[in-house]
């Protein structure tokens, strides 16, 4: 039975959501189940990660049908790492949401849908079939629609409409791209496509398919001209939901971009140049957008966009070092962005507002908590030796090596912008003299919660901060891991052979 370890993180999330649906009305039971279940899921993901690290790429043919025909699940080091990170973020957010989300929202099956979302994410990371990837994307967006509208406030619905429209558009473009690809190659298995696509003579159509994939995944990962849905919607749902969205949803798009453009469409110079231009513009526009925002969660939303640029830049330069930098950044970013949105949630529960103009004096009132919050802030900016610093070295070095001085400038400029934004945030929210906010009635204030609830909100932040610190101080092992992933991505032969062993 350990042969099938690959599917256990996936099946466990499905089991969790079914079990949680049986306990529909009992939210206290659901809270316990979700936290314990996420912890068990983390154990499964850890086991899978360890197995992949020691024994190399794992594959499973679901249903027992052979590779190009059946649906393949592949866990190479990249997938296993991302599954592990998803489970880490999932555990943190599960605990955080059980305290910070009001019971009225939990009663509408919040946890069941939350685990469906995790199921979709893990499935997207593990699948080795491009149509199956589309299906997992659908599961992700359907569950995220429910999570984003749960509660039905006016602002939420408005944000959800924008989110819905652009994401459906992205799905349609993605599906069209799959159709074009299937028409060209007659296969949907990614490893099979990697073999078939270079042999196709109609290069023009291959390029069209590649651009369609770029647009589809570009909308999902919120890159330069297509990011408008993200800041319009991420500040509307509860912070716990925004945390899992901000940490993981755009990263699935980035993962898909990395997977498709290192495995299927390789060695297209035009495409790499497009990716670099997109990355530079994303870095600029996200950073500048973050400067002018007043709502804390909108600031973080723009920073998500800004930092997607780092990963796209790494992919665009397409050297082993650059991709290692992009992967390292991806690892760091998932942890830190989830943490940031949870921090904004805790500040919201303390003060009752997320507007940085009306916040203030947090350092005076909660000095220890504020110091805890500085760690993710500093990692985000990339102050050495914290986690955001190391991937930028790889990116800067490889932009020197490939003589992409535009990328070099953009990376430094975007880091600088992040520093300004965070400094502004710090002085407004933490240092400024407290502003008298009107007390809100029927509002769940942080200091009125029970100790258990407070711990449920604080421990995930401590946990993720610890992970961030490990990524920063254990940078060597993470760097080795990302170099190994980059090596695997650059040499797709081992992926192909793992899926379709030569008989």
């Amino acid at each position: 039975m350990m042969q099938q370890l690959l599917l256990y993180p996936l099946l466990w999330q499905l089991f969790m959501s079914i079990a949680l649906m049986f306990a529909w009305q009992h939210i206290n039971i659901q809270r316990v189940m979700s936290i314990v279940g996420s912890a068990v899921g983390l154990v499964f993901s850890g086991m899978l990660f360890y197995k992949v690290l020691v024994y190399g790429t794992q594959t499973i043919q679901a249903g027992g049908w052979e590779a190009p025909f059946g649906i393949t699940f592949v866990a190479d080091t990249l997938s296993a790492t991302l599954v592990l990170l998803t489970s880490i973020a999932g555990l943190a957010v599960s605990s955080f949401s059980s305290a910070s989300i009001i019971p009225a929202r939990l009663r509408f099956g919040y946890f069941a849908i939350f685990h469906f979302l995790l199921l979709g994410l893990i499935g997207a990371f593990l699948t080795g079939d491009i149509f199956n990837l589309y299906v997992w994307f659908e599961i992700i967006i359907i569950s995220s629609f429910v999570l984003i509208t749960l509660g039905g406030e006016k602002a939420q619905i408005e944000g959800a409409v924008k989110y819905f429209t652009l994401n459906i558009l992205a799905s349609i473009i993605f599906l069209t791209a799959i159709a074009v690809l299937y028409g060209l190659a007659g296969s949907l298995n990614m490893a099979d496509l990697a073999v078939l696509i270079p042999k196709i003579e109609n290069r023009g159509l291959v390029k069209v398919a590649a651009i369609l994939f770029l647009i589809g995944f570009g909308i999902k990962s919120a890159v330069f001209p297509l990011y408008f849905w993200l800041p319009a919607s991420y500040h509307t749902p509860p912070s716990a939901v925004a945390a899992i969205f901000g940490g993981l949803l755009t990263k699935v798009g980035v993962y898909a971009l990395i997977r498709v453009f290192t495995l299927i469409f390789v060695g297209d110079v035009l495409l790499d140049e497009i990716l670099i231009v997109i990355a530079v513009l994303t870095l600029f526009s996200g950073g500048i957008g973050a400067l002018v925002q007043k709502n804390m969660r909108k600031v973080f939303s723009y920073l998500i966009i800004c930092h997607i640029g780092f990963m796209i830049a790494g992919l665009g330069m397409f050297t082993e070092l650059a991709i290692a930098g992009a992967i390292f950044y991806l690892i760091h970013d998932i942890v830190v962005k989830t943490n940031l949105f949870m921090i904004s949630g805790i500040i919201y529960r303390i003060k009752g507002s997320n507007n940085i103009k009306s916040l203030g004096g947090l350092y005076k009132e909660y000095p220890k908590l504020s110091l805890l919050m500085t760690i993710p802030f500093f990692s985000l900016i990339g102050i050495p030796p914290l986690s955001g610093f190391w991937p930028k070295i790889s990116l800067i070095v490889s932009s020197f090596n490939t003589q992409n001085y535009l990328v070099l400038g953009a990376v430094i400029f975007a880091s600088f912008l992040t520093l300004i934004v965070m400094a502004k945030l710090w002085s407004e929210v933490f240092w400024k003299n407290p502003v008298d906010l009107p007390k809100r009635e029927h509002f769940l204030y942080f200091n009125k919660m029970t100790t258990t609830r407070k711990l449920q909100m604080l421990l995930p932040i401590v946990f993720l901060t610890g992970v961030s610190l490990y990524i920063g101080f254990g940078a060597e092992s993470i760097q080795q891991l990302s170099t190994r992933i980059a090596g695997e991505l650059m040499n797709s032969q081992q992926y192909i052979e793992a899926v379709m062993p030569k008989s």
Partner: protein
Amino acid sequence: MKTIILRTASNYLLPILLLFSIFILLRGHYLPGGGFVGGLIASIAFVLHAFANGLKDTKKLLKFHPGFLMPVGLALAFLSGLLPVIGFDEAFMTGLWMHDPIPVIGSIGTALFFDIGVYIVVQGVTLTIIFTISESA
């Protein structure tokens, strides 16, 4: 819509439609049909009953909230996929079949239970949606 013709007809149509939905479910493995269509037809039977006799009567007939069918069906489908993993050390969702076909029903395998799971989920979802809409209308 409480006309006597519809009400009388719906009393006869309910069992016939339910039987027909099961027929569609069973023939679905090789021929057009299957759990999804079967589930839709079965829910149509209840919707028609609700049209003719009112929502209250249909709810009384069902005895439990249709939303409960969703996790039940999902669990059945999930277990049918899991059975080869647990019992036979095969890949997830591998089809296991009994050797001898049973009269009327035909061969029984895990795929059939998966389809029954889908059949139940579809009924649960459709009836929940329609009941909620007609309650608020």
